[in-house]
């Protein structure tokens, strides 16, 4: 009678240990616009100035490698419609009867919702890295969304056409005399 339950448990066991077999890559892949041939005026100084003008906070630079890493935080609204993205597992039961005390773990799947508001305040953090090389300029970006409790709710790669085009225009708009 309970045999099907025993068959289900190893399946759950296997579920715990799922790890990728290859190094994950961004999906979709970074847009072609996120890499362009370096012009004579392209320099790390201009890229840093452009990022600062776009509201980014520079977190790290390495002039020899031509790298600048920056991030930008914005307050935003998170529309979760009261639905938990992941079902919650858990529960601990301790009980006793007739002189016996037993403890056990109860597994349940619950979907929260109902009492939570449909929108929450959240923080959106963009992380960008730009490498200005001798031959080309390369950009990559990701976006993470943290809810008001500081929990990571969303994380995605965002090296898209619109952002890279905008950044390229911003770098090219920086007057060349600002570069040393």
């Amino acid at each position: 009678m309970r045999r099907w339950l025993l068959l289900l448990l190893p399946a759950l066991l296997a579920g715990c240990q799922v790890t990728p077999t290859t190094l994950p890559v961004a999906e979709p892949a970074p847009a072609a616009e996120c890499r362009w041939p370096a012009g004579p005026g392209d320099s790390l100084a201009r890229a840093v100035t452009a990022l600062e003008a776009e509201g980014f906070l520079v977190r790290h630079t390495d002039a020899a490698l031509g790298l600048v890493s920056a991030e930008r935080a914005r307050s935003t609204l998170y529309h979760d419609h009261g639905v938990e993205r992941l079902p919650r597992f858990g529960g601990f039961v301790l009980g006793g009867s007739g002189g016996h005390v037993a403890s056990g773990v109860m597994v349940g799947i619950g979907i929260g919702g109902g009492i939570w508001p449909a929108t929450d305040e959240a923080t959106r953090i963009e992380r960008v890295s730009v490498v200005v090389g001798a031959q080309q300029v390369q950009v990559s970006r990701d976006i993470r969304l943290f809810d008001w409790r500081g929990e990571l709710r969303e994380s995605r790669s965002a090296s898209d056409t619109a952002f890279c085009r905008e950044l390229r225009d911003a770098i090219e708009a920086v007057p060349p005399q600002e570069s040393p």
Partner: protein
Amino acid sequence: MRRIPVVILLAVWLAGCATPTPPEPREIHLAATPETTLREAMDLLMERGYVIRYADGDLGRLEAVLGRMPGYGVSLRVAGQQDGSRVSVVATRGGRPLAPRVLDPLLTDLQTRLEPLP
């Protein structure tokens, strides 16, 4: 008791979730300077959508992250040797180390770029 196998299975299940694996870096030797190695590694990682958080040519370090749930990271250590560099790489998923073999395609690409086959 009939419930004993169920209890044992549950205990094994939970243990399977919690067992940490020690980080084992994947190491390779390359016939290129540490700075060239870092430059190519940065290029390869950014091609794959990784954001470089930190890289230093003098210290021979690189940290890159990928914005996919639950968060992936790659960290490289490059040490110069008389005829090239020794690279050790660790990949993590949600802060936990991944099996070193997941890095093989990346390291093969790095090797191909730095030591083109005749």
